[in-house]
């Protein structure tokens, strides 16, 4: 162990077997004093003594300890460099919780969450800014059940989330009642389909190895969630006298690079192409990935279509053709997919009518190449792997780690003739990019003065006040027509974190708070456009942001509905020719309208609204930004148009 601290605390009786005997021998002065104080404390709580005390305490019985297994667990967590533990408190990890705050000095810092789904989603958002996991503690039963959807989102989004869950394996050690309800034979079974690895250590040394191994696995591409069970007896028992515990060394695995022959073939196709397109989804795991994709695109003067699973490519780069992605893909003779979760969907379209039909968008003879770590790790039950893509070159590797060798392979093949052709192509693409940007700006003016406020106006008003600052948009733009990605100038890796992954609603608010937590120490201004239905899953995250002084500006995208579902209902009603006048039933969030400003204030967050007149929005954003700059969260309830 890295360190030891004697902080005697009352615990349940565990004078059982050899471990208990060893603990009795190890009793220290503090423990003895605690024992002597016991009769007076019992007298002060007669009812409790009557109901639960087995009888007068034996002088030989040891009720305190100086060093628990959970202290060692904290040593391990500290060695892994976690900054934060997100948790809703739970008795199955009470020892770990106590060791963290007292023995560990609250390092990593415990972040109080009001729901385990929030804990995991916070860690999910944090990981995409910081590039490493935050830790989550949860009950192995009810906590993990709450957390499961958020774990699934992180799994689909290839995000490393690191969970420690409490459980009591030894049935004879369980308190009657809730502790049985909170115990389980195989805790991780319910989420094993969508975590990368899990373990149930049965000794402290085993815990140390598994905890370090879990971190390594989570951080190896494809990065994914992991779960380690911390048995409550293992947490609460004293460290056996004389047991030599050490924290295993962590060495992160170098990410897998593409096979050199396959990379050379990809380079040959790309350099020879007349209209190559690079499609990036979760390609840039780190800031280096963004730089490498810029270098590849500029080397080839190729179109880039950014699906924005991560901040892969600057929005204002002249080679960025995202705004005209369909035309770019339809015209391409070579298409390279970089960590594209749904490559089939990128080159095909499916029509959602009574008879679903699909057709190829890309040219039939276009050469298709994929580089994805997804090919290295696929599970079968949950279908997040999407439809099977028929491609010409499939490289099972981490795209970011492969880009450097691909760039070099391309450079080796570029002749002066090709270079001239590339430069001419680049000039045309720059013109098309500018045309698309001008068109998007014009489109944003339609409905400019409308009330409820258009989403284009909302993002433009926000942009007016944050540009020039070190900002980070910590929310997804999919439900607001992608306006920020069409209008704002994104050029830094942390300025966009993509979406939920699994489209599980309830991710947005806690992920934004988690990302803002990561941004805090860098002094970045975190902004969040918050969907109303999403916030209603677990609004307690607002309190977490206020309690922990996490600066974050949230603008409600309050369209007063689960709008995506409303459109699905409309589609069904039209298909059945029944009219859509009742399709609000079950999907609208009105009557009464939800007062998000009041909810925010109730959680200790500066809040204004509802604001439905666009003229009022700019000044409200200004006031809220002043609060955020002082280090606090703020929320503005903006009544918006649907998308």
């Amino acid at each position: 162990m890295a360190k030891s601290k004697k902080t005697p605390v009352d615990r349940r009786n565990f004078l059982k077997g050899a471990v208990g005997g060893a603990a009795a021998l190890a009793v220290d002065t503090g423990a003895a004093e605690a024992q002597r104080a016991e009769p007076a404390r019992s007298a002060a709580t007669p009812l409790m003594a009557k109901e639960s005390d087995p009888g007068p305490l034996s002088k030989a019985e040891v009720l305190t300890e100086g060093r628990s297994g959970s202290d060692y667990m904290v040593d391990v967590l500290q060695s892994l460099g976690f900054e934060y533990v997100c948790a809703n408190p739970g008795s199955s990890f009470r020892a770990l919780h106590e060791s963290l705050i007292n023995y560990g000095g609250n390092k990593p810092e415990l972040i109080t969450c009001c729901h385990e789904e929030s804990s995991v989603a916070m860690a999910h958002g944090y990981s995409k800014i910081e590039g490493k996991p935050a830790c989550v503690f949860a009950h192995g039963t009810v906590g993990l059940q709450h957390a499961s959807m958020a774990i699934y989102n992180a799994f689909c989004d290839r995000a490393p989330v690191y969970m420690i869950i409490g459980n009591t394996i030894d049935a004879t050690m369980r308190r009657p009642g809730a502790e049985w309800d909170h115990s389980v034979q195989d805790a991780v079974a319910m989420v094993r389909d969508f975590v990368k690895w899990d373990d149930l250590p049965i000794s402290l040394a085993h815990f140390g190895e598994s905890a370090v191994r879990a971190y390594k696995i989570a951080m190896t591409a494809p990065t994914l969630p992991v779960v380690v069970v911390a048995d409550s007896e293992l947490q609460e028992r004293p460290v056996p006298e004389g047991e030599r515990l050490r924290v295993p060394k962590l060495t992160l695995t170098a990410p897998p690079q593409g096979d050199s022959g396959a990379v050379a073939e990809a380079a040959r196709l790309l350099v020879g192409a007349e209209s190559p397109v690079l499609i990036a989804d979760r390609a840039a795991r780190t800031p280096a990935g963004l730089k490498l994709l810029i270098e590849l695109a500029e080397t080839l003067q190729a179109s880039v279509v950014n699906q924005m699973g991560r901040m892969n490519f600057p929005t204002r780069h002249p080679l960025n053709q995202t705004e005209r992605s369909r035309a770019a893909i339809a015209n391409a003779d070579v298409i390279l997919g970089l960590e594209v979760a749904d490559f089939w969907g990128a080159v095909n379209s499916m029509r959602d009518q009574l008879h679903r039909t699909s057709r190829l968008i890309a040219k039939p003879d276009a050469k298709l190449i994929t580089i994805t770590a997804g090919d290295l790790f696929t599970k079968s039950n949950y279908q997040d792997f999407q439809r099977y893509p028929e491609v010409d070159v499939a490289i099972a590797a981490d795209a970011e780690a492969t880009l450097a060798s691909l760039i070099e392979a391309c450079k080796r093949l570029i002749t002066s003739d090709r270079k001239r052709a590339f430069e001419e192509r680049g000039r045309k693409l720059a013109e098309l990019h500018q045309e698309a940007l001008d068109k998007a700006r014009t489109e944003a003016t339609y409905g400019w003065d409308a009330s409820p406020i258009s989403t284009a106006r909302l993002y433009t008003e926000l942009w007016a006040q944050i540009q020039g600052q070190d900002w980070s948009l910590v929310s997804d733009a999919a439900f607001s027509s992608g306006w920020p990605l069409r209008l704002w100038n994104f050029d830094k890796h942390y300025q966009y974190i993509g979406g939920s992954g699994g489209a599980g609603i309830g991710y947005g608010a806690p992920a934004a708070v988690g990302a803002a937590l990561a941004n805090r120490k860098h002094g970045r201004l975190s902004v969040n456009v918050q969907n109303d239905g999403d916030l209603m899953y677990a609004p307690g995250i607002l309190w977490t942001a206020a309690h922990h002084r996490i600066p974050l500006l949230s603008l409600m995208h309050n369209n007063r509905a689960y709008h995506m579902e409303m459109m699905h209902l409309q589609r069904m009603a039209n298909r059945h020719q029944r009219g859509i006048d009742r399709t609000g039933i079950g999907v609208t969030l009105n009557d009464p309208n939800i007062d998000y400003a009041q909810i925010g204030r109730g959680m200790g967050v500066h809040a204004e609204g509802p604001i439905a007149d666009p003229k009022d929005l700019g000044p409200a954003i200004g006031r809220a930004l002043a609060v955020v700059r002082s280090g606090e969260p703020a929320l503005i309830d903006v009544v918006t148009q649907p998308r």
Partner: protein
Amino acid sequence: MRFSILFAMASALLAQAPGSAPKAGAAPSGNAQNGKKLFVRDGCYQCHGLQGQGGAAGPRIGPRPIAFAAFTMYVRQPSGQMPPYTSKVVSDQELADIHAFLASLPQPPPVKSIPALNQ
């Protein structure tokens, strides 16, 4: 995330209105006021926005809508992702009212008048 591709698909919809050629002069005169109500009642706003301004779910359709015959043809028999509106759900007269509403929408301010759109 595939919003950009969805947007591009949506933008292509009205340009691809299928079917027979529209009959000139067949458009009934529309009531823009009633059209505004129908635009909400019939859920047009859900994809196209309350002022027809469009977005990822549906293209802009105002203030200068396509010709009424092509408009009707597409609404009845869309070739893209838009759900079909048959005459059982929306009458021709109601479509004319909606078309009149779209035609009555104000022109937007010029881009140059909005500083944040030029930065």
